């Protein structure tokens, strides 16, 4: 990972390291090419230079438009995450058959010894 500042709650900070005040509308014109490159890294997208130019302009326009939500006076309004409120949905803890191993591995890009084979995960040879 590049040097990305992470807060204690695991969120990653982009752009200014100063926290934007809650419910303030961030203004448009803030998304630079470098910030798009940073977002692409966070999202694991190896975007090209040409894409950076296109996306920087588009993301700036889109984020400027969606920032309109900040115009709404909603300080004392509770957020809605799901339309039908439900909490702690349980089902009986009954053992069910799993999918057959080979049927699952059949869709994988690479398999070795009945397991998913992954590229190296360490930065240096050990």
């Amino acid at each position, binding site marked *: *990972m590049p040097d990305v500042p*992470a*807060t204690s*709650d695991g*969120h990653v*900070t*982009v752009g200014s*390291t100063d*926290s*934007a005040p*809650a*419910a*303030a509308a*961030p203004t448009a014109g803030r998304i630079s090419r470098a910030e798009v490159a940073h*977002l*692409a*890294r966070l*999202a*694991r*997208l*190896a*975007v090209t230079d040409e*894409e950076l130019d*296109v*996306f920087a302009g588009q*993301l700036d*326009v*889109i*984020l400027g*438009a*969606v*920032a*309109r*939500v900040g115009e*709404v006076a*909603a300080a004392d*309004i*509770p*957020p*809605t*995450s*799901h*339309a*039908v409120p*439900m909490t702690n*949905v349980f*089902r009986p803890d009954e053992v069910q058959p799993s*999918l057959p191993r080979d*049927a*699952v591995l*059949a*869709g*994988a*890009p*690479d398999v070795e010894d009945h397991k*998913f084979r*992954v*590229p*190296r*995960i360490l930065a240096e040879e050990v």
Partner: protein
Amino acid sequence: MTDLTRMSAAEIAALVAGGEVAAVEVAQAHLDRITAVDSELHAFLHVDTSGALEAAKAVDAARAAGSVLGPLAGVPLAMKDVVVTKDVPTTAGSRILDGWRPPYDATITERIKNAGIVMLGKTNMDEFAMGSSTENSAFGPTHNPWDLARIPGGSSGGSSAAVAAHEAPLAIGTDTGGSIRQPAAVTGIVGHKPTYGAVSRFGLIAFSSSLDQAGPFGRTVLDTALLHEVIAGHDPRDSTSITAPVPPVVAAAREGAAAASLAGVRVGVVRELGGEGYQAGVLTAFEAAVATLRELGAEVVEVSCPSFDYALAAYYLIAPSECSSNLARFDAVRYGLRVGDDGANSLEEVMSLTREAGFGAEVKRRVMIGTYALSSGYYDAYYGQAQKVRTLIARDFAAAFERADVLVSPSTPVVAFGIGEVVDPLTMYRNDLCTLPASLAGTPAISVPCGLSEGLPVGLQIMAPALADDRCYRVAAAYEAAAGTLSIPELSA
């Protein structure tokens, strides 16, 4: 002999149940139609000829053995490619899943199979259901049967085109911000987004989990209701599945058509869903539809839902945020594409190269918008604020439903536009203006054809409170009985 592809699902089911036509003949007639016209339409990404004929044979065998058939047994269906189907290719319109054959069935796939419905194949769609035109499919666009140079709507554009072009009498779509209602509207068919949680999401490839909802397409309101009843109902494998009984949508569709009256029904016209940005022809057709509802005896009132003006902004924060999280599963390890695994690149590099190669531009844009909106420092101002707007939209609906039993609006601000005509992402997003509020509130809404503008179909959207899907069907069926269905133009085949 009568052309089986011109019949409604209800008519086909009656013929099959009565032994007048074999399900295999019905399936073959639709497969032949696909062979004849789909090279022009590109509604299907995969046609499962052998699977369809096998399923049809099973229905015929069950009937021969004296089994009682379900109300849609032997009726063909087109399945949106975002729904997983065991051993049948499933791509969600994305290169990253090209060639993947899922090892299991979605709950709705199971229910469709158990009902004896014959799945013909998988339909084209905007990649991961992100779009309003089906142009974002990695496999090329679908064409509108009304005018092949135009879009069939999206994201469920393959499903809408297939039904409109008589390739299938029924189809499954999914609707996150309008992806059933908008394609139904612009192809002149019926499409319903159920109450959120009414239809299981188990086995839907997730886009925006708090909004995604599968639902039915048909050429008539009754057919759409019949399919709704097959796919709806509680599923313990989806923790957001609601336990309330399925509303009596089929009975409502039959009653609405039979009564041909809306006496005592209060219809609210939403002031904010019209006016500037809406095509004049769309508004004219909508006003004529409202006049028809009034002639049927409905009491028409105007309602105001001021927060709806912020639905677009809230939606295009919530949906990208959730998609940036959901699409993290495409990591080049468990399924789909892997690019750049040359022994030198790290896992992270392979992941980034794979996602770069496997995702299209709109998916990348939304993943990055979501990544931005969920970032620390921006979370409260963007995602958190959007969720508060969602509360206000739900409150506007609640207040409006005090004064009206159903709310109506045009289904889309514009009729089908030309393929390649809309290139600016924000302009494309505005296609969802009318459909977004019900998505954010989780309430049910149907689109039913309401005439033409410049020779292209216009949709009437009918919205109801949560769990009152039957009201959508009752009003839509009464309207359909009065106004009639649209006659879809012939293709060359």
